[in-house]
């Protein structure tokens, strides 16, 4: 009797090889170091680090988070140590984790984006750069670039020229036509698109008559947004030839499989890490168990096999 061959979970996002399709989402995983007490983070497909800007950023005043039905709003405002300190203090420690790392970058102007991308190109530990063109929680930049094809195209082209690393462009869901936005990124040279970032939302206290977030609006994430994310990822997969990374409300292997089924090359897990720090690992194990049960030998045999009626 032969031993059953374990299913091959390896995934590719363009030229980036991942041992499995499950990555942590930016802003929900720190630099990965906070997770080492929970598990060996090299078991992840990749770690996407917290968004980095050119200069250290203070972020928004508290209150920064508010819970909503099956979701949460955040308005962190990209508090981070800035690219320089990241490169000097954090990057050297990343190798120790043994994981594949991707940097998530953000700028108030195209020039800032370019500068951050350029500086990070020198960091060998980084497998790719994810361009956050969709942060809803900062006054300038971010979503301003991401909500129309022209803006996104211009930004992507410039950052593309500034770095030799694979460039993933993270898309905003706050748009009329996600397919058109994804195509704009593709045409401007992105190696992959990742989506969705958070959906802009708001919560108020009827008694104090004030917004619950100091920033007034925030970004909605978590299971509540999953149906919207899945639809957008499906549309993006139909619109572009470059790999699509699916994000939004993924909590379990079943959720992750849904995104892979509609065509995602890989997925990212964000908010789910908060309630269950082991979420990513449980998802990887759950995908493997599903493939064993369903006798699927390779991820590629499953990806994008959604059945539609004629």
């Amino acid at each position: 009797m032969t031993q059953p061959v374990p299913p091959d979970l390896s995934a590719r996002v363009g030229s980036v090889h991942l041992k499995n399709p499950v990555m942590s989402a930016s802003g929900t995983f720190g630099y990965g170091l906070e997770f080492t007490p929970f598990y060996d983070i090299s078991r992840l497909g990749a770690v996407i680090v917290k968004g980095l800007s050119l200069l250290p950023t203070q972020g928004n005043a508290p209150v920064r988070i508010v819970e909503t039905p099956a979701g949460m709003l955040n308005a962190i405002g990209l508090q981070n140590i800035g690219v320089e300190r990241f490169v000097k203090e954090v990057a050297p420690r990343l190798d120790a984790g043994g994981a594949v790392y991707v940097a998530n970058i953000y700028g108030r102007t195209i020039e800032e984006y370019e500068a951050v991308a350029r500086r990070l190109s020198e960091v060998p530990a980084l497998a790719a750069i994810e361009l956050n063109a969709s942060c809803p929680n900062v006054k300038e930049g971010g979503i301003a670039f991401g909500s129309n094809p022209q803006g996104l195209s211009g930004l992507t082209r410039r950052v593309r020229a500034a770095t030799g690393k694979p460039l993933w462009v993270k898309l905003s869901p706050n748009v009329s036509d996600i397919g058109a936005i994804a195509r704009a990124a593709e045409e401007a040279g992105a190696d992959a698109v990742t989506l969705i970032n958070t959906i802009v939302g708001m919560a108020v206290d009827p008694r104090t008559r004030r917004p619950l977030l100091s920033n007034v609006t925030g970004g909605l994430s978590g299971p509540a947004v999953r149906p919207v994310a899945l639809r957008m990822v499906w549309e993006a997969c139909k619109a572009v030839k470059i790999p699509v990374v699916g994000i939004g409300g993924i909590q379990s292997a079943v959720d992750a499989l849904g995104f892979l089924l509609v065509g995602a090359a890989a997925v990212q897990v964000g908010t789910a890490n908060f309630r269950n720090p082991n979420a990513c690992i449980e998802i990887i194990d759950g995908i493997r168990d599903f493939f064993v049960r369903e006798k699927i030998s390779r991820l590629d045999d499953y990806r994008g096999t959604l059945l539609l009626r004629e």
Partner: protein
Amino acid sequence: MPQGSPRFVHGTIHHNTGSGIFYRMEVAIPERIDFVPGQFAMVSGWPGNDPLLPRPLAIFRSGGVRGKGTVEFVYKVVGRGTALLSGLHAGDPIALTLPLGHGFEFPGEERSWWLVGGGVGFSSVFPAAAALDGQRADFEIFLGARTRDQLPPGEWIPGGAVPGRVHLCTDDGTAGFFGTVAAALRDRIDRWRPTGPARVAILACGPREMLKVVAELALPLDIRLQVSLESYMACGFGVCWGCVTAVRDGEKSVYRRVCKEGPVFDAREVVW
């Protein structure tokens, strides 16, 4: 004291019983955990995603042996999450991430400790009292509540009713000192004769306004004050940056994570 590294565990409720306005819950967990008073757990004891996020609760006590532990919490029902917790029965499952955060510090030089708990704030300071009691250190406890029945049951007080050690305060005078815990503390300070700068230190947990008043009393007298702050939290272990509070860093004010650099801060650093 070393602050243990966190883990995520599935536990089972041993008991979960109301005592006045407070619930006390004991959970069986796979491992004994060590903790520093002031450290906390992120607790989610309900199925489904509404509420979505776990809730922070101070670790009240922990016990057991290697391979079999228990941990206790004391909480007050104030909203949906705590209401759901209060509905749990013995045998129900519960998920915990613990121990988290930076707890109280106990440098050797102090000779006397004043522990101040407002409302359910005693849940953080009683573990500190228990630790000091274990070291036969000199401490006094100040407990503030609106009314008599909002004070914790006497038998929960570590070290028991040693005369002069426990100061109960009620806003309406139905028990102990008639007035706020801060007023009681002011009285105590008036009666206090410092023999050296390091003689007394305060550990406090309670509503932010209370902590602020305590800081206004203690800091001008150079009494070292550690306060345990509250904040809305998503993760509890330092990755979301949602829980920050403003603290002084030299001339500037910066945002630090209540769940990681806190919940216990030196009161001199806090931007009140």
